[in-house]
Each structure stands twice: as structure tokens, then as C-alpha cells.
């Protein structure tokens, strides 16, 4: 039999809120990967460009994950690859292989795609091959195709831009300078369509704005029309670099309206957005009442049932924990490997009001050996918000939410409470659901 892994001390994989004094509370060491696969990867996000084709130029081991991701969501028709082999490191052929491989694939595609996303990887950047030259020549060779330079650079994930940020820069690279429509606005950087039924969505619509979102684009021209918008709203930090790149390149104003669970911040954002877009501020009191009622209902349903929250579900897990605790909901743990600077206010609240609440790591090596029986200890009554919380707690009651799920504002809180209520009353096949890679991606 295997050695008993679960006797090991996991103390260093969690920290009390009261003891957090840095944004990186866990020492970086060996990393574990929990089998909660719902979050999207670059191979999923890039599929959002309608009718585009992806080409990865990487070694076998790096290709394996992306090609099978594409296979699993039925996207192999839009996926190709060039395999880098050992000899290419020393034979001086890396540039030729890259350029000729991509060229060969494009020429033999049964249909000419409007855009091709070409991914380089760590080794090519470390070797310092002439990627600008390669991309220049590819663009000259295929003037009818938007050749987008993309990156699979995990080695640089802690450098200037994270892979998420890089992807969200490349994703909009095909948008071109064009006449701006002052009544058109984009929501950029989400993997899930922005909820136009949110108060922000309704406010913009009532003010006559057309909201464009890559998640809703079905044809390539629709995607290109995003270039006509006067502004780009982004709702989480990873989208910021992309929005700023568009501001610099196309003059589209970057507007940060992050998903928040703090009433004051939501109100500030709505007020700011109303000012920016010359719209009418919605009835904040009424919206707050809606959210209050939803939270009260959830509290009534939950009773003393504990809740655990993870960062893959919501971009501000501490903020959601603070909101829940403020309403008497029993939050038992929060899962995140770092504390984002924008969570400072929520952290302060938690330090004061829930100092013993643990922040738990998810990639620390000890997470592999942490007990996953908390739900059992609670007689099965434990609600998880997010796949990782569901996995680590061992619960069958969880909200299968990925990256905010397009929710925003007070109405986002209402929707989240409704999903939580539903999750309380229905058991889910946790293993089957969280094993699906890139939840919701349909290729």
C-alpha cells in the first residue's frame, strides 16, 4: 500500500487572517496541482476569437496539455502544432522550424481562418530567437490573416506579466484603429460573458450604449467591431494589462470596474461609471435592499452550515468572506495562494472580525496531504464556493462558479446567493464536475 500521506503536518499551508502581514503568506516551494480543472487555460481563452485557429510551437511535453484541452472541448479543428525536438536546440533550425511550420499549417488548412494565434514558448524566448522577424514575415506572407503573437511562458509567470495577462493582451491584438462609436463600450478580459442584467449592464443599456463582449461574439466581424468602442471596461486585475494596451494602441479608454462584494465600493464604481458614460446612477438603496434580502435568505437556508470560498470562483475571495461574515454566515476557510492588494480592506475587516479564519494555500506541497474530510466532519453539510474549496473540503454541495462567472455588483451578489441556496439543497457529483477542464468552453 501507499505510505500514509495524511499524517503529515499541514500547519504551514494555512495562516490565520490575524497573522497575515504580506501579500505572499506562503513560501514558494514545490507546487501541487489539485484536480479542480474548471478554470480556463490559454488554449481555452483564445478560442473566444470566432473562427480563429491556434498554432503552438513547443516541445511535446508542453503541447500535451493544450492539444488535449482542445480535443476535450471539441476544438481540434481549430488547433495545430509544431513539435520542437532536442536537435532543434543545437542545429540552428529553431527559427526556420517555427516559421516554416506555421506557414505549412496555414497553407494546408481546409479553410482560411480570419485569425491565427501563434504561440511561442519559454525555450524560444530563452534562446533569443528572432520572434519579431518571424512574425513580421508571417504577416507579410499572409496579409489576409490576422497573425496574433501569443505566449505560453510559464517560466516567466512571475515576471512582468502573468500568463493570464499576456493572453488578455494578445486576445485583442487583431482589433484595428477605426472610427469610434461613442455609444459602444466593450467589456474585456472575461472568459465568461458579462451579465448585462447587472445594474451596470442595465445602466449602460438605458444610456443607449451597446455592450460588446468577446464572449458573445459569434462571427469574426463582430469581434473586429469591438475596435469601434470608445471604452473598455475590465472587471478583474488580470484584464488590466490588455485594457491598457488597447488604450495605448487604439485610444479606447480603460475603465476599471472590478467585481466587488463591498457595498461602498460597488456604489463608488456605479457612480464613477455613471460619470464616465454620462448615465443615470441606478437606485442604490433598492439594489442594496435586493442584495440584503438575498443574503438574509441565504443565511436562513444555511443556518450554521459552514462555507468555504476559493479564489478560482471569485477574484476577491476575502471580500466575499467579509460580506458573508458581516451577515452572520459562518465562513470556515478561504483558499488562495496570495492576497491581492485590492483585498486590503477586506483583510482588515477579517483581521478584526474573524482573526482565526484560516487562509489556506492550494498549491503548497502540503496541500496534497491535507485532510479532505471537513464535509464529513460536518455531516455532509458544508457549502463550497468554487471548485478548489469543494475539492479540499470534500463536499458535494458547491457553487460551480469560475472567475466570477460574469456576475457583477449587487445583482451579482443576489445571483451568487441564489446559486448558493440551490447548492445547499442539491448534491453534486463533485469529482465529475470539477474534473472537466475549462468549464463552459465549447470550442
Amino acid at each position, binding site marked *: 500500500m501507499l505510505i500514509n500521506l495524511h499524517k503529515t503536518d499541514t500547519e504551514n499551508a494555512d495562516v490565520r487572517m490575524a497573522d497575515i502581514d504580506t501579500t505572499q503568506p506562503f513560501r514558494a516551494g514545490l507546487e501541487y496541482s489539485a484536480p479542480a480543472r474548471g478554470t480556463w487555460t490559454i488554449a481555452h481563452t483564445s478560442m473566444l476569437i470566432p473562427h480563429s485557429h491556434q498554432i503552438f510551437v513547443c516541445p*511535446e511535453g508542453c503541447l500535451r496539455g493544450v492539444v488535449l484541452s482542445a480535443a476535450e472541448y471539441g476544438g481540434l479543428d481549430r488547433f495545430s502544432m*509544431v513539435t520542437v525536438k532536442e536537435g532543434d536546440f543545437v542545429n540552428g533550425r529553431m527559427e526556420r522550424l517555427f516559421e516554416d*511550420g506555421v506557414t505549412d499549417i496555414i497553407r494546408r488548412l481546409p479553410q482560411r481562418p480570419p485569425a491565427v494565434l501563434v504561440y511561442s514558448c519559454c525555450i524560444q524566448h530563452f534562446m533569443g530567437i528572432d520572434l519579431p522577424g518571424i512574425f513580421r514575415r508571417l504577416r507579410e506572407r499572409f496579409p489576409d490573416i490576422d497573425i496574433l503573437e501569443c505566449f505560453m511562458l510559464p*517560466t516567466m*509567470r*512571475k515576471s512582468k506579466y502573468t500568463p493570464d495577462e499576456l493572453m488578455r493582451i494578445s486576445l485583442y491584438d487583431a482589433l484595428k484603429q477605426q472610427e469610434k462609436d461613442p455609444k459602444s463600450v466593450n467589456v474585456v478580459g472575461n472568459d465568461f460573458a458579462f451579465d448585462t442584467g447587472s445594474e451596470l449592464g442595465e445602466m449602460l443599456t438605458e444610456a443607449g450604449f451597446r455592450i460588446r463582449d468577446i464572449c458573445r461574439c459569434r462571427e469574426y466581424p463582430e469581434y473586429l467591431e469591438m475596435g469601434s468602442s470608445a471604452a473598455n471596461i475590465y472587471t478583474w486585475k488580470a484584464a488590466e494589462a490588455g485594457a491598457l494596451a488597447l488604450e495605448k494602441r487604439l485610444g479606447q479608454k480603460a475603465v476599471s470596474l472590478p467585481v466587488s462584494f463591498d457595498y461602498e465600493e460597488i456604489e463608488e464604481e456605479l457612480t464613477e461609471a455613471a460619470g464616465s458614460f454620462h448615465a443615470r446612477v441606478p437606485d442604490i438603496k433598492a439594489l442594496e435592499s435586493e442584495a440584503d434580502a438575498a443574503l438574509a435568505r441565504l443565511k436562513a437556508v444555511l443556518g450554521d452550515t459552514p462555507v468555504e470560498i476559493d479564489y478560482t470562483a471569485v477574484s476577491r475571495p476575502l471580500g466575499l468572506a467579509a460580506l458573508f461574515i458581516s451577515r452572520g454566515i459562518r465562513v470556515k476557510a478561504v483558499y488562495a495562494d496570495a492576497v491581492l492588494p485590492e483585498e486590503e480592506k477586506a483583510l482588515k475587516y477579517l483581521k478584526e472580525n474573524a482573526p482565526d479564519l484560516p487562509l489556506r494555500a492550494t498549491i503548497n506541497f502540503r496541500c496534497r*496531504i491535507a485532510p479532505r474530510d471537513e464535509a464529513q466532519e460536518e455531516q455532509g453539510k458544508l457549502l463550497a464556493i468554487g471548485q478548489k474549496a469543494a475539492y479540499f473540503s470534500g463536499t458535494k454541495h458547491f457553487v460551480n462558479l469560475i472567475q466570477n462567472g460574469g456576475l457583477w455588483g449587487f445583482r451579482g451578489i443576489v445571483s451568487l446567493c441564489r446559486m448558493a441556496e440551490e447548492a445547499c439543497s442539491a448534491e453534486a457529483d463533485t469529482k465529475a464536475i470539477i474534473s472537466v*477542464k475549462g468549464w463552459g468552453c465549447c470550442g
Partner: protein
Amino acid sequence: MKQVQRVLANYSADLFGLCSALYELGGLIVMHDASGCNSTYNTHDEPRWYDIDSMIYVSGLTEQDAILGNDAKIIGDILEAAEETHPKFIAVCGSPMPYLLGTDFRAIARILEKKSGIPSFGFRTDGMHTYIRGARDAFAAVAERFCRKRNENPRTPEASGSGNESRKKFSVNLIGVTPLDFSIVGNAEAMRTFLAENGMSVQSCWAMGDTLETLSSAGDADLSIVVSTSGIAAAEVLKKRFGIPYVTGIPAGKAAAEKLLRDAAAALRIPEEPAETGKTEKAGNGSGTVIIGEPVFANAVRTCLEQELGAENVRLICPTEITDGFLRPGDTATDEEEDFEKLLNQPGLTVIADPIYRRIIERKDVRFIDFPHEAYSGRLYRSGIPVFAGPGFSGWLREKFFSS
């Protein structure tokens, strides 16, 4: 063009094969990689990840550590984990970036062993070979380092009796068993059952269902059966160290099963009853049949097709590494899409392969029999993987082969 896959996928890589081979043995296994290798491996290539704990991690290599050659980071991190988890061994292996950096894994392993006192291995995987190479190196290392002969009075095969009666005296090592080639649909169990039904006991199974302690007793076996090419090197080590002979083959179908038993008997110098030459159905077909897959598996399927179903002109295409001694004239060793394009688009051809290979078929008169291979399509078609170990496989193949 070579090295281009326009429509096909690729096989699991060497470092994933290594992890798969060592998964159940209680070690601390570290892929020296930035990120991504771990999730790729345990999502697509490791069906045991959710339900069976194993300490497999990535080092989290960063740009700064790569540029500065900071091996002290990975060494310190591994020692920290080893101190807390008390693994039976430590294995560290590489991905493409360490290959580019020239990381010396054997030196790292020596340092780890010296500082921790735990047996440690360094493997020069680089993510640019197939899983076979990684699993091969892992099994060979276990055979070299951990196997001891406990029974100092080995049985001497006696040439008395025949068939089951004589084989009862023998125990075997099954080498090369990983989910990448056998999935988790019951093939490893079926091989044990088959051997038991034929009078042989399993001394050790490398490496599904057995512990490191069990594997370390492999030196007491009388015979090794190599069921995938990933097991050959370990079998060679056991032969060299303990004089244990080995045969290759999978009992996939009646004919392959009988052949395996005959080969085993020959290796053990047991007289066997002559093989029955049963009636075979005739299945002459256009350009014949092509089987794509790992060579030991593909040869077993070929044996079944030729000897039981009367198929003619059965050829193999082996895209994984290590094919020496497994191919006949007319067979091909390639992983190039352009080769598949030519070899598979032949009039009237029957192709037995992972469903992803369907994508390269353009001709309408090519018949395709799905045979998912976890090392190729991962978990995607697992529900379609049959239990191919055992004589009962003949029925499955017959039904597929003779149906329209």
C-alpha cells in the same frame, strides 16, 4: 512537413511516463518545471490522481532561478518536503527548460541523497521524448537500486510435466504496466487473472497495484513478462543481476495468450503441448490492416488478427520510441503526421487506432476501428477502451473486425 501536426495530437511525454511508472511506489517525485507539467500530467495522463494520493510536484522554476542557475532552490525545496513527508525515495526529472539550461539532475540527486539519506534519482527527461522513455528509465532505476534476491535458493526449472502443471512452480514479474498503456479499465487485473488461471503467480507488477517492497522482491521471480516496451530495460537489469529470463507480450486474445504461454515455457525450459492450430476465419481485405500503437500491444493485436481472424497483410505503425525487435518488414516506426497521411489513406485499408487518428483519414473507403490509447488521447475516450488482456479479447476484436 516534418514535426508538424495539423490535425493530430501527440503522445504523453517522457517525464509523465516516469511519474506514471513511479506513481504507486511511495516516492517524492519532482518535475523541474515552471508550471503546467503537473496539471497536464494529472489531468490527462494520470487517472489515479483524484483517488490515490501520490507525491508528485513541480519545482515552480522561475525566470530568475533559470537565469541564475539557482539549483539550490529546488534542492532546498525538495529537502523541506522530504523532511516532512518521509518518502521512500526521491526522483527528480526535467522538462524542456532544464534541458536548455543543462541542469545536472544526477548531481542534484547525489546532493539530495547525501543530505537526506533517502535514495535519490536524477533523470534526464526533457519533455521531448515519449512516455515510454521516461517509464523505461524509472523502472530500470528501481530494478537497479531496490531489487534484492531474498530467496537464496532459487528454484531450478524442472522439465517435468507440461503446461499448467509445470508452470505452477513459477512466479513472474509483470513489467511495463502503467495506465498510459493499460488504462484503469481492468487490464492490469485481467493480466493477473490470466496468469493465475494458467498456474503462475505474480511476484511483482511494475507498477500498478504493488508497492516498492513488492517490486524489490522481483529478484525472486522465475520469469519476467514485459508487457510494454517501457519494461524492457528493467527486465534486462533483472536478467543481468539475477539471471531472470524475460519474454515480451500481452495475452490479448486467445492466440496471443497462447503464444505468451509458449514463450514463457520456452524461457523456463518447460516442455509445452503443441499449439492448437484452430480454424481461422478469412478476412482478406483491400490494402490490409494497420494497427497504430505501442509495439508490444500492437503485436499482440496483430497475432490475434492473423492467427484467429485470418487477417492478411497486417502492418504496424509504431509512433512511440523503442521499436527494435518488434517490427517486421512492412511495419513503420514514425510519429510524423505526413507519414500517417500517406500510410493511412490507402484504398480499402482497415485502421485500428486511437480515435484521434480518424482525423487524418480522407478516403471514404478506409475502415476505422476505434481503439483508444490513454497515452495518446488521455482520458477523452477512456470509456471506449476494452479490457484487452485475456483470451476474451478475441471476441471483442472479432466483432469489431467483421462488422461493417
